[in-house]
């Protein structure tokens, strides 16, 4: 007998409906799956066979032919266990559905018939809604995530047996419900508050400017100066996620299998801090047969923190250039092309020199000039060029730490950032970008109204500090954000003056005043 159940194949963030066709026919014990299954799906034969038997159903002795259609999409993962088992039971007459056909079922089976959570439930639910499926059947731990999609009922079941009984109408299961807006509001108090950091006011200020304009930031300072502590507090001063953003973040995290069992909406901005041993693939995404999202996409709408930037592999760092510029990553493989969004704020930290003491008045730096230069060139010019704010973070000794007051709470800073962001949204409305950091040359010219005094200051700064034309643009962009924080429409000399100081890596280490010319 022939039966059909819908499953789902994930390709990147997109889910494709796959029809699982099962034919139980004459023959002797063959169990074949066709339709571009990967090795993982072939393994599901073992799980399905045992799960059916251990759920007190009978596994047919005849030949079973399974076709996954459309046959031109590469299919992988364990989510086909449940639709396959249901289709076999229906084909052998052990399941007589009382509910409408055309539903989507996904889930991994364990040998005893229990259902395990799978990745990508949110995408699967979206696809099911779009094709107007009557309902979807998901493992219980994924139900709250699937319920984020309005317009399709998501039923969570814990085992194959429960799934069968639900479909036959003999078990009562209620569709899962969550209130996305409610989840979004439930942000709690951030555990990491700026008020916990004593001193370092200039670095905190730079962090505020970075948050307000969506600028990337590099902190240069000796070990123990609090760079990581500061970076961890950036998500807390960014505006809260919008529902649209939260859903997008959840979708990426879901595809990567990072939404915890029973979890639902990712309501806080992600903070990703991959170790410096990470590969280029780990950073931007990739893998076979289907490319998975990398750290740049997992940090979408949040912060990617790279501690000790110089220790990362050169090719891994260089691979960041495209996602930083395009704010998305397109991974092309022989069979598929996948695009993941990657609009993240980059925060990086590094030591000023290999020994860490360059510029420290209490320690002598023992590095040679050549060592320092080699160390600094590990971060390439093109990458540095994409980091608008570069600040030096000095180390404070115990006495200084005690002297310094605690700063403002994150909530106060976040309020100012929010106002500055709203100003930008209004000004940039319709231009396709949302923050000052994303502005190109043309937009800079229309949005950056500089006072006469400011113009002459910039001219002098370019001459005295030897800034290049590109540095000029970067400084102008940051000055726009500084002015937004001050609520000023025209960029004044005080805003430009502050912005000019956020370019410490463009200065030469050991020559007076003028910067090292950059190629």
């Amino acid at each position, binding site marked *: 007998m022939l039966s059909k159940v819908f499953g789902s194949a994930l390709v990147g963030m997109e889910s494709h409906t796959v029809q699982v066709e099962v034919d139980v026919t004459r023959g002797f014990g063959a169990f074949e799956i066709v339709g571009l299954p990967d090795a993982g799906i072939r393994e599901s034969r073992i799980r399905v066979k045992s799960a059916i038997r251990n759920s007190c159903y009978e596994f047919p002795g005849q030949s079973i032919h399974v076709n996954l259609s459309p046959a031109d999409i590469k299919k992988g993962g364990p989510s086909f266990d449940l639709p396959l088992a249901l289709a076999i039971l229906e084909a052998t007459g052990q399941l007589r559905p009382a509910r409408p056909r055309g539903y989507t079922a996904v889930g991994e089976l364990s040998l005893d018939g229990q259902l395990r959570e799978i990745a990508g439930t949110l995408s699967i639910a979206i696809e099911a809604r779009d094709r107007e499926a009557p309902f979807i059947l998901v493992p219980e731990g994924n139900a709250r995530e699937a319920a984020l999609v309005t317009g399709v009922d998501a039923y969570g079941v814990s085992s194959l047996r429960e799934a069968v009984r639900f479909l036959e109408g003999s078990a009562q299961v209620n569709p899962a419900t969550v209130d996305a807006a409610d989840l979004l509001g439930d942000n709690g108090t951030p555990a990491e508050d700026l008020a916990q950091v004593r001193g370092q006011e200039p670095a905190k*200020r730079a962090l505020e400017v970075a948050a307000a304009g969506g600028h990337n930031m590099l902190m240069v300072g000796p070990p123990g100066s609090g760079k990581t502590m500061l970076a961890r507090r950036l998500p807390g001063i960014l505006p809260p996620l919008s529902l649209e953003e939260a859903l997008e973040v959840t979708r990426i995290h879901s595809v990567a299998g990072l939404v915890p069992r029973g979890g639902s909406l990712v309501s806080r901005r992600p903070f990703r801090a991959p170790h410096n041993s990470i590969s280029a693939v780990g950073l931007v995404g990739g893998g076979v047969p289907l490319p998975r999202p990398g750290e740049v996409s997992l940090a979408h709408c949040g912060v990617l923190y790279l501690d000790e930037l110089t220790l990362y592999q050169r090719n891994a760092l260089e691979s960041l250039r495209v996602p930083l510029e395009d704010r998305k990553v397109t991974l092309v493989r022989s069979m598929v092309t996948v695009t993941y969004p990657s609009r993240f704020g980059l925060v990086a930290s590094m030591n000023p020199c290999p020994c860490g003491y360059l510029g420290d008045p209490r320690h002598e730096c023992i590095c040679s000039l050549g060592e320092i230069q080699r160390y600094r060139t590990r971060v390439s010019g093109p990458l540095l060029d994409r980091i608008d704010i570069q600040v030096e973070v000095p180390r404070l000794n115990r006495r200084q730490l005690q002297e310094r007051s605690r700063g403002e709470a994150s909530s106060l800073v976040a309020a100012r950032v929010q106002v500055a962001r709203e100003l930008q949204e209004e000004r940039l409305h319709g231009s396709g970008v949302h923050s000052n950091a994303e502005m190109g040359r043309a937009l800079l010219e229309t949005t950056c109204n500089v006072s006469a005094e400011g113009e002459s200051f910039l001219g002098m700064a370019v001459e*005295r500090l030897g800034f290049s034309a590109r540095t000029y643009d970067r400084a102008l962009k940051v000055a726009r954000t500084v002015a937004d924080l001050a609520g000023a429409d025209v960029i004044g000399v*005080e805003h430009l003056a*502050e912005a*000019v100081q956020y370019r410490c890596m463009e200065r030469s280490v050991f020559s*007076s005043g003028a910067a090292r010319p950059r190629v």
Partner: protein
Amino acid sequence: MQDLQSEKAELVALLSLPGAGIKKVGELLTLYGSPAGAWEAVRRGAAAGGAGAGKNAGWRELSRRLSPDELLGSIESGGITVVVRGGPAYPALLGEIHDPPWMLFLRGRHRTPAGATVAVVGSRKATPYGLEVARWLAGGLASAGVHVVSGAAYGVDTAAHKGALAEGGFTTAVLGCGVDVVYPRSNGALYRDIESKGCLIGEYPPGTQPARHHFPARNRIIAGMSDAVVVVEASEKSGALITVDFALSEGRDVMAVPGGVFSSNSRGTNALIRNGAVPVTCPEDILKEIGVSGEENIGSAEQTALQFREAGPKERTLLDAISGGLSDAEGLSGKTGMSAAETVSVLSRMEVEGLVTRGPGGRYHLLATRR
């Protein structure tokens, strides 16, 4: 004049032979008495060209095919002047040392400096203090008409050249590579500046890449062409101390700028002072020592005090705090009670106006004079 021209051509030709370095050519010249004699010996196959007879034959073949005049012409057409010992543009003092270079390659303006010549040398990895002192001293010397010599390296050398150029002075950079090779590479703009307002010289033929052993030889030229050597900042192992050794053995004045006793960058200079070098605290100290009367407009400590009064109240608060020993925006904002944004903004304007300079670690330092 004809003689001088052919002498240049023969010297250049000798240097162009494979395996013939400065040292080898020097030996040939000593052996055969003159460039013409040495060149003739090579052409005859008599001159020993390193190890093995095969090489001799190679030199002989090569020298017969080579035209010294054409070689010289191709070098000179590249804007490089060849200066031979005894020739008009050869630095007079340099000719007096124990082993003066037979010839020099020169780019830029050549003039025989009429006044005094002072070398300003020091650490490549200088502190902001050292850079500022070098710039200030060289500027003061230049405005008194003194010819400033240094080595075009990072740090003190670069600051000294820039200081002299800023005052419209004549400055010479002595190189440890060919005069057409930019080293360090990021000093290209400085090279162009020096070439248009001063000159670049070196004893290595065009195209020679820098090598470790070139620099002590280069230092001998720096010391040799100067009346006095001023060391701005030097650690105990600094190459600047090699320049000092040459200066001492040639009987030139040695002066040093005192520095902090804990700073390793000043250990060399402080030791020089302890051993009898003249301490330098302003450009006048140098001028007095070499017997040049300074002009009125040389920057001095008084002028710094003047700027304190010109600056606004916020600037003055920050300048006071910086001279009180604080140097980064973190400490300055904590001390003065100004907000971080304001502190950074005011410091930035002060930097662009030339009141302070910003060094490694985001530390601000006072500048002696307005730039």
